């Protein structure tokens, strides 16, 4: 391809797709790292099957990774892609609907042989690369498998080993197309395979071969230039949601001066938090892979009782198993952080797909009146601050706190203008001492003006006391069946949680007028999509307001007023309508639900269309 033919693009969406054993996620994250280092803003969306290795070549086994990057602000992983990279026929069949009309297809033609076509259920061996059905697209076929084997034939590796490097060949090709440096990937390969230098060498060879192939062949798709985005000054890194969650927990432990005790049972999409944390034990982090979800929450409670910050995590099905433990922590009034990395339910549901359907479970899903605080992250990087905030509230208010993330945030990545440790707020933790006794008697359920009790640790002489799941007498904590006392304690525990509203920021608008026709209220991972949609609408002359909630229980103090300031309130959610019910219930506003429940995020266009629909209905 000729080097003069460089086209400038403001943003590009690339989707990589292939067998789940093809190394698609690795290819995607490597391209992401190089793109971040090139200074683009970006957002990613891994879309992979629940089966680790579904039969090779079938639609069920297709794994995808979408990356949206640009020279302008990027808020979503993109609705449709500009470039679709497919390693086999099944990948094309499963992903063609995600490609823009006129978009580029880069296909590994070796993945379209008779067997692959049959496995992808193309009838009678019809090859879509040859039958003219892709006329609306720019199709570039490359014999990736053949070329990779060719470039590695001197290495002495077997065919299977050689084929494992074909993703690197494709990556090299794309690095050329988008003018990316190969260095970060070469460094990565050298470090990852430091004990298997022959594997590192083979992958690097394939990477370079792909790059050279694109440089020298006659493929007519040209080369693209996406300039660095004008982002806020500062130092950035790329971060994924689960990684940010792990870092946020460690940071909270450091700022509170407490060890973190993280106990969990493996579950998609939460396990990567465990994997990340378990690599950082030099930070006084204890990670425990428990025998089950119940043991995880219970041992975290035990650790909190001992003076660590107990944390447990799961996705919806596991959270439901932890329910009784969480309710115990509410009556103990002990710090506990529960991370719910939501996925599509009910039951096992769609384990690798995203959903926001655990909000009600987080707020209400316990026996009895068992209020607690709920905090939700709105982007991969925001997982850091949000989980830090969940830890702060748990420790400062002696309460369990839910931290809500989801599969889209957990595995998505974005550039992060990371904070320095000294800028993180301090978390105040005070333990009870013998001075807290009244006439020699320690009252474990005596409270301060915020209604928070003291944290009395075993090992402190003179404060020996018992706590339990039975209703406790005010102040003493002794078992009490007194009806007046029970009602009083239920109200106190509720007021304590309500009081948190005085210790969190007021709700700010993300954009739009303070008063107006329409306010969009969102929470969680819909943030980027709503933001991108509203920005486009502003360019089209429509200015609606957007508030995105981090604090879901209690709500910020001014939320009611904010809702009143707008004629209508629209609540988009990836569920069947949960926040919308909470808003209607608490503020008696006729908020309009807008729901998508397909295991996928909203598309920007969907939000825009809905806004137009609501605005038009207001005019009529």
């Amino acid at each position, binding site marked *: 391809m000729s080097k003069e033919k460089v086209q400038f693009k403001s943003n590009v969406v690339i989707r990589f797709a292939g067998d789940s054993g093809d190394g698609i996620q690795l290819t995607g994250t490597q391209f992401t790292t190089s793109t*971040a280092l090139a200074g683009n803003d970006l957002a990613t969306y891994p879309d992979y099957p629940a089966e680790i290795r579904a039969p090779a070549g079938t639609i069920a086994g297709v794994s995808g990774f979408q990356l949206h990057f640009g020279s302008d602000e990027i808020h979503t992983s993109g609705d449709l892609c500009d470039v679709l990279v497919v390693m086999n026929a099944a990948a094309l069949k499963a992903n063609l609907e995600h490609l823009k009309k006129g978009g580029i297809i880069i296909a590994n033609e070796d993945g379209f042989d008779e067997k692959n076509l049959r496995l992808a259920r193309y009838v009678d061996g019809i090859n879509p690369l040859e039958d003219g059905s892709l006329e609306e697209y720019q199709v570039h076929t490359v014999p990736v498998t053949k070329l990779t084997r060719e470039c590695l034939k001197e290495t002495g590796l077997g065919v299977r080993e050689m084929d494992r490097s074909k993703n690197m060949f494709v990556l090299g090709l794309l690095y050329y197309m988008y003018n990316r440096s190969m260095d970060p990937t070469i460094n990565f390969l050298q470090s990852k395979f430091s004990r298997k230098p022959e594997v590192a060498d083979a992958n690097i060879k394939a990477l370079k071969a792909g790059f050279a192939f694109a440089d020298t062949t006659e493929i007519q798709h040209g080369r693209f230039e996406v300039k660095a985005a004008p982002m806020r000054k500062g*130092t*950035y890194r790329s971060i994924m949601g689960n990684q940010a969650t792990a870092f946020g927990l460690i940071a909270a432990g450091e700022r509170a001066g407490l060890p973190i005790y993280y106990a969990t049972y493996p579950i998609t999409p939460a396990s990567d938090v465990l994997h990340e944390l378990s690599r950082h034990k030099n930070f006084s982090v204890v990670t425990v892979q428990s025998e089950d979800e119940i043991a995880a929450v219970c041992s975290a409670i035990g650790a909190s009782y001992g*003076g*660590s910050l107990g944390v447990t995590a799961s996705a919806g099905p596991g959270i439901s198993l932890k329910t009784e433990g969480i309710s115990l922590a509410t009556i103990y009034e002990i710090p506990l952080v529960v991370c719910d990395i939501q996925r599509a339910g009910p039951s096992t549901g769609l384990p690798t797909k995203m959903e926001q359907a655990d909000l009600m479970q987080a707020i209400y899903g316990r026996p009895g009146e068992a209020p607690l605080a709920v905090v939700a992250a709105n982007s991969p990087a925001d997982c850091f601050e949000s989980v830090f905030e969940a830890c702060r509230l748990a420790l400062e208010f002696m309460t369990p706190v839910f931290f809500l993330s989801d599969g889209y945030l957990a595995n998505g990545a974005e550039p992060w203008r990371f904070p320095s440790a000294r800028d993180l707020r301090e978390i105040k933790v005070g333990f009870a001492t013998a001075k807290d006794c009244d006439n020699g008697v320690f009252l474990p359920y005596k409270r301060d003006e915020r209604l928070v009790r003291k944290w009395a640790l075993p*090992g402190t*002489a003179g404060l020996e006391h*018992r706590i339990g*799941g039975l209703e406790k007498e005010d102040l003493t904590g002794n078992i009490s069946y007194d009806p007046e006392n029970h009602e009083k304690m239920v109200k106190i525990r509720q007021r304590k949680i309500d009081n948190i509203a005085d210790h969190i920021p007021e709700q700010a608008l993300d954009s739009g007028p303070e008063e107006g026709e329409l306010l969009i209220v969102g929470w969680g991972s819909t943030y980027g999509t709503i933001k991108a949609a509203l920005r486009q609408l502003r360019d089209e002359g429509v200015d609606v307001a957007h508030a995105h909630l981090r604090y879901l229980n209690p709500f910020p103090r001014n939320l009611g007023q904010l809702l009143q300031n707008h004629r209508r309130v629209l609540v988009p959610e990836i569920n069947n309508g949960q926040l919308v019910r909470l808003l209607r219930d608490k503020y008696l506003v006729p908020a309009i639900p807008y729901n998508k429940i397909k295991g996928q995020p909203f598309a920007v266009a969907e939000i825009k269309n809905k806004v137009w629909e609501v605005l038009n209905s207001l005019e009529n």
Partner: protein
Amino acid sequence: MPSTQTQEQTSNFTSKDLVSDQDIRWCPGCGDYSILKQVQKVLPELGLLKENIVFVSGIGCSSRFPYYMNTYGMHSIHGRASAIASGLKVSRPELSVWVVTGDGDSLSIGGNHTIHTLRKNPDLNILLFNNEIYGLTKGQFSPTSPEGKVTKSSPMGSVEHPFNPLALALGADATFVARSMDRDPKHLQAMIRRSAEHRGTSLLEIYQNCNVFNDGAFQAFTDRATKNDHALFLEHGRPLLFGPANKKGIRLRDGCHPTIVHLEEDGVSESDLWIHDEHDSLKAGLLARLSENENNGRGEFPKAFGVFYSTQRSSLEDAVLEQIESARDKLGAGDLDALIRGDHVWEIK
């Protein structure tokens, strides 16, 4: 790694100091009273500081125990005491952590935590009050009730085969397994002491009479008239003897088949008998099922009491802390800024 359970120090409390200000609500005549008393008797002799003792319980009659101990205590949820206690022990290895549980709590609803706790071996002392019945819910069969047991929920007799708690514990690779009973205070005290001294999870099964819903379940082992013939008390390095005047003994035929012999009538001497070795895991398994052996003409096989098995294996908290130490040695103390920054950053100017 320091352990409170073998600390060379003087206790700062007496038995009386362990009595809490709460009225005890167990039924009059319940075996739990004796267990509470023996625990309160033994604890001051262990060289512990009172503020370092924590009792954790689940749900059930036995699980009210922490409320009656003037130490730190947690009454928790059904079946989960050992999970909670594990988290506490790992986060605070210097504490002396006790789990009080029952047969329903630890073997039915909490069975999973019991076996996994034993496998992982945190330094906990589990006191399993086995009364072979559900008391707090007023008399249903439990996972240790014998087949055919008639209860409110099994009027035609239970159709379920019961757990053998000690065989289960041994199967889960427990490092300390013992049995005692509420009505033998001296033996119970000795077993509580041994449990406390063991580093790792100790499982002490205590036969406990529920005089309301399952009265007399263990009468054969506690009544003077029958005790000698039905209870065999184990001592490390000593032959297995029982019966009136200790004239009966257990011999291992072919090294693995227990048979009852009479020392005088069968012409065998003590040296021919099975000599108890509490470090022998295979024989511990035989002991756990001793009473299930078929009568070989010398009467029924007795049940064993005492320490069945004891071995040393790294405790969970020691292993966890060693990894943290080793991570610090290798990586240095955590540097939050370096962690957050990572390996790949770029500047926007």
